[in-house]
């Protein structure tokens, strides 16, 4: 059967005289007959389900009108007004809209506060007698998760979850319809759908994607096309007849609950009713949802695990066991190393990240909540929550705006008792580990028995076939000669008996043995053949990366070996870079290393040159100075770029320091003393820092006074250090006049130093009017000008 929802409430209220800026929900109390009449008009047009006038009747939204204490009253009045319009077959959906605030981590509303706000409203709707709860127009999956959890706690009635998507088929916070559907179905949504933001044409492909993902009934409530603004009124262009035509297509795509959102009227609903109400389901095309496997999601990405999908790499590196620095990072609350590991593993190809916060003595729940929250903002791969602490597990699951995998659920009583209900509540999948109170089963057959028990208990807790990943359990080959064989046999038995996706922590196999990478990679290849779907491993291991790439090709997951070839095909002769110039001697080698910015290479070369008897002056003049001059010229000609100049300067510095260290007496003498400062009021110092670096590494003594420096200080320091040159920098028009003041102050104080000015807003013309001696457009210019000045001064 096709069910028909109603259309827009807001437009109808405005037409009925609701003043602009007035709280629409207050009319439930003040003008219930008007609300009832609107509902009646929709019912008369064919609506099977009407939605209460409670879209904004939550505590946060009502606070805007000073009505926050009327949540229960206005929701109850809304249900009464709706009930007054109903015939015997009409159902009432309690409308629950967004809070208007973004939920942590995207906003400042905590998950618990969001949950409480929804719980309060939904409790009122439930107690007032709605037939179902409709959570709608949500753009943040985390807010929807809070609302759905609240609905499940406050009511036993069916819950419809409708997200709003943009034209790119994602919510504006990044969630696609497939990902949203997987998360919401796993958390127990009864009907999944989409409303608002777009017209039916744009919502059609979104409905198709939802239908391909779930067997849940699907609802859709489109706007009456894309609006325009005419005479300051938002006008939706789609006429009722056209809406009816689209309704047929939406039903054919899989929708079973159809209504309207912004801009739709009773006429639109009548048209929809006439178009689809009497369609026989048997006449509709059957929508084939995706073959069941286990799906995990982040906020914005879904990863499928199973025999019909390519191997998924689970990164194991966010685990402090045996890693002091990572443990200290977690204990300190910094999480810098945790974040680095996350980004690095994803760059290395990990598609899921295991997250373990098992540092002794810390509040693991707090650490897990923070880690999950931060990582959900940093990477888009789904997360695996790896903990034995039930509080840490719940904290992580609550904080995660996706569908996580719980690592792990064994057959030990406390895991079954506490972990399974959490998996059900938060819609997580579970990694089943064949360990029982009796210990670790040695044989594949024994492991099968334990897994059967876990799955049985999981089904009793309400989990479903798509919720499992089975661990084959690897023991150490050095301690147990059959460890590898039993793990491989377990994988085969799992596939034969269950067909659920499989995993295992590969590196256990090689514990205590040399060249563990060889054993791990070899075992990985064998396990993939035996049915391993998602190995937990170190993604940085090059041998493992090669093995996985080759295995993907051999197992048919890399058609024509395209991906393998891209990564491992030798570079053809024509693609190879032109051979670099071959330096004739050590001086040329140093020169080349400086020009190329090879900081690490230059130090041993300078050491070698000194050992070979080259004196420091020859090295400085023939290799270092000429190299920097070459780089400066190349920069001026547009053949070399600022970061390359800085790399050369760093290499130059490394070379100088080496000379100084080896032969302190031969250290190069200073070309001159330069005072540098960003002028008073100006806080930008990047450009000035670059100039300082280049001058220093070209042989000048630089006294960098920093940023926001007053003319008085600059004058004082210039005189104190008998500066040859004063370099001044300003970035903004508002601070540029300080250049003038400072130069005037220098001249008034009798300072004989030359002035060089520069900075984003400065020009040669400005430098002239400020009486500066020179203008430098960039750091390389500044070096050239300074050298020229010192040369003139010396001669």
């Amino acid at each position, binding site marked *: 059967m096709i069910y028909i929802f109603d259309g827009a409430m807001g437009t109808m209220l405005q037409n009925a005289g609701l003043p602009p800026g007035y709280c629409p929900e207050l009319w439930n109390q003040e003008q219930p007959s008007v609300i009832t009449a609107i509902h009646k008009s929709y019912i008369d047009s064919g609506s099977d389900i009407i939605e209460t006038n409670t879209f904004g009747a939550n505590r946060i939204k009502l606070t805007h009108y000073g009505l926050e204490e009327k949540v229960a009253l206005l929701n109850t009045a809304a249900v009464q007004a709706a009930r007054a319009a109903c015939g015997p077959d009409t159902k009432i959906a309690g409308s629950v809209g967004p809070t208007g605030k973004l939920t942590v981590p995207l906003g400042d509303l905590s998950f618990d506060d969001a949950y409480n706000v929804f719980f309060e409203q939904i409790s009122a709707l439930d107690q007032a007698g709605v037939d179902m709860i409709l959570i709608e127009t949500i753009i943040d999956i985390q807010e929807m998760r809070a609302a759905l959890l609240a609905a499940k706690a406050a009511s036993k009635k069916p819950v419809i979850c409708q997200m709003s998507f943009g034209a790119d088929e994602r919510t504006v916070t990044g969630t696609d319809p497939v990902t949203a559907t997987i998360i919401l179905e796993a958390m127990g949504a009864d009907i999944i759908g989409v409303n608002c933001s777009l017209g039916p044409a744009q919502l059609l492909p979104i409905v198709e994607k939802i239908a391909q993902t779930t067997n849940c009934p699907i609802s859709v409530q489109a706007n009456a096309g894309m*609006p325009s603004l005419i005479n300051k009124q938002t006008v939706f262009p789609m006429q009722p007849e056209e809406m009816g035509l689209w309704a047929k297509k939406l039903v054919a795509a899989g929708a079973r609950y159809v209504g309207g959102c912004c801009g739709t009227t009773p006429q639109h609903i009548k048209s929809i009713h006439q178009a689809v109400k009497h369609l026989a389901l048997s006449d509709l095309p059957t929508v084939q949802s995706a073959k069941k496997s286990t799906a995990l999601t982040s906020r914005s990405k879904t990863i499928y695990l199973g025999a019909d999908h390519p191997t998924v790499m689970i990164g194991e590196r966010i685990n402090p066991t045996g890693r002091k620095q990572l443990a200290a990072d977690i204990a300190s609350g910094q999480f810098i190393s945790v974040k680095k590991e996350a980004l690095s593993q994803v760059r290395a190809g990990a598609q899921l990240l295991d997250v373990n916060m098992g540092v002794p003595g810390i509040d693991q729940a707090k650490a897990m909540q923070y880690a999950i929250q931060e990582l959900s903002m*940093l990477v888009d791969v789904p997360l695996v929550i790896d903990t034995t602490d039930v509080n840490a597990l719940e904290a992580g699951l609550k904080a995660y705006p996706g569908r996580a995998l719980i690592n792990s659920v064994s057959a030990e009583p406390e895991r079954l008792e506490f972990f399974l209900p959490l998996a059900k509540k938060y819609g997580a999948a579970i990694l089943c580990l064949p360990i029982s109170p009796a210990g670790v089963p040695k044989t594949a057959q024994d492991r099968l028995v334990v897994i059967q028990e876990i799955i049985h208990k999981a089904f009793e807790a309400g989990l479903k076939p798509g919720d499992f990943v089975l661990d084959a359990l690897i023991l150490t080959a050095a301690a147990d000669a059959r460890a590898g064989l039993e793990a491989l046999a377990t994988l085969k038995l799992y596939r034969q008996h269950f067909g659920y996706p499989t995993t295992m922590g590969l590196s256990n196999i090689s514990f205590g043995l040399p060249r563990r990478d060889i054993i791990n990679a070899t075992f990985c290849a064998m396990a993939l053949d035996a049915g391993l779907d998602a190995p937990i491993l170190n993604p940085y291991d090059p041998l493992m990366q090669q093995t996985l790439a080759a295995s993907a090709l051999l197992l048919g997951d890399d058609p024509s070996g395209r991906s393998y070839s891209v990564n491992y095909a030798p570079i053809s002769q024509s693609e190879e870079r032109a051979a670099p110039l071959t330096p004739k001697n050590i001086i040329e080698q140093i020169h080349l290393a400086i020009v190329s910015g090879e900081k690490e290479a230059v130090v041993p070369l300078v050491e070698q040159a000194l050992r070979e008897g080259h004196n420091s002056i020859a090295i400085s003049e023939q290799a270092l100075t000429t190299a920097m001059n070459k780089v400066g010229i190349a920069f001026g000609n547009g053949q070399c770029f600022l970061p390359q100049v800085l790399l050369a300067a760093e290499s130059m510095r490394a070379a100088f320091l080496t000379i100084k260290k080896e032969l302190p007496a031969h250290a190069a003498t200073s070309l001159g003393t330069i005072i540098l400062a960003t002028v008073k009021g100006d806080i930008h110092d990047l450009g000035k820092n670059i100039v300082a670096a280049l001058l220093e590494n070209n042989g000048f003594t630089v006294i960098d006074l920093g940023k926001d420096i007053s003319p008085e200080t600059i004058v004082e320091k210039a005189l104190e250090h008998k500066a040859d040159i004063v370099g001044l920098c300003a*970035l903004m028009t508002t601070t540029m006049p300080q250049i003038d003041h400072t130069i005037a102050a220098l001249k008034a104080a009798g300072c004989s130093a030359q002035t060089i000015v520069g900075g984003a807003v400065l020009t040669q013309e400005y430098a002239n009017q400020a009486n500066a001696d020179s203008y430098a457009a960039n750091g390389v210019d500044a070096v050239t000008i300074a050298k020229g000045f010192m040369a003139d001064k010396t001669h």
Partner: protein
Amino acid sequence: MPIYNPTIQTLDMSELKRYSGLTKCTEFPQHLLDQACTEAQIISQPKASWQIYDYDADSSTIMSPEPLSLPPTVISKHLANSLKVAVIAVTIGPDLEELVSEYFSKNEYTLGLLLDAAGTTAVELAADQACELIKQDANKQGYTTLFRFSPGYGQWDIRVQPQILTLAHGDEINITATSACMLLPRKSITAVIGLTPTVPNLPHKETIEGSKCDQCQQINCLSRKD
């Protein structure tokens, strides 16, 4: 007044290269670019706040509680068809610029420069995401959004910065303006986004053609788009 924490999951390498002056460079150590990206992602704390106001195009005035008149320059022309404006403030927080200074003090100039460029890329990305939220909300009401226009663009006097910051509630995300009208943290942006009526059957068109660089007077800027 919405508060939004944008996500920095990937940084556009071509933008990072542009901001560091490497657009035309064909060979540069990738590991340094990757390191700058990674550190910027880890250390950024992106936040955005904004407020929508009515706009009177006839008098070029933002109708905030204390109305703000805009000068008869490019900004007024840009907003000529706007009925509303969103005034927005975005930052990635102070940590990144501190790390940039630390790199320079350790004589790791290149990484300092690249990290600074990655910070610019990050704050622009954060602003893009916040603008997308404003855009989608505006579209639902029949408005089209124009590209964001910041103090300093197109001869719009930077001294308006404190007022713009106030209208955007920048203090809520810890952005302040110095007496010289610079934003702190330095990797922060303020801007005004015009909301014009969506005209049926016409593709959305921004009033001013070309890139934001066309509105900037810094013709020698290393990051300038050709």
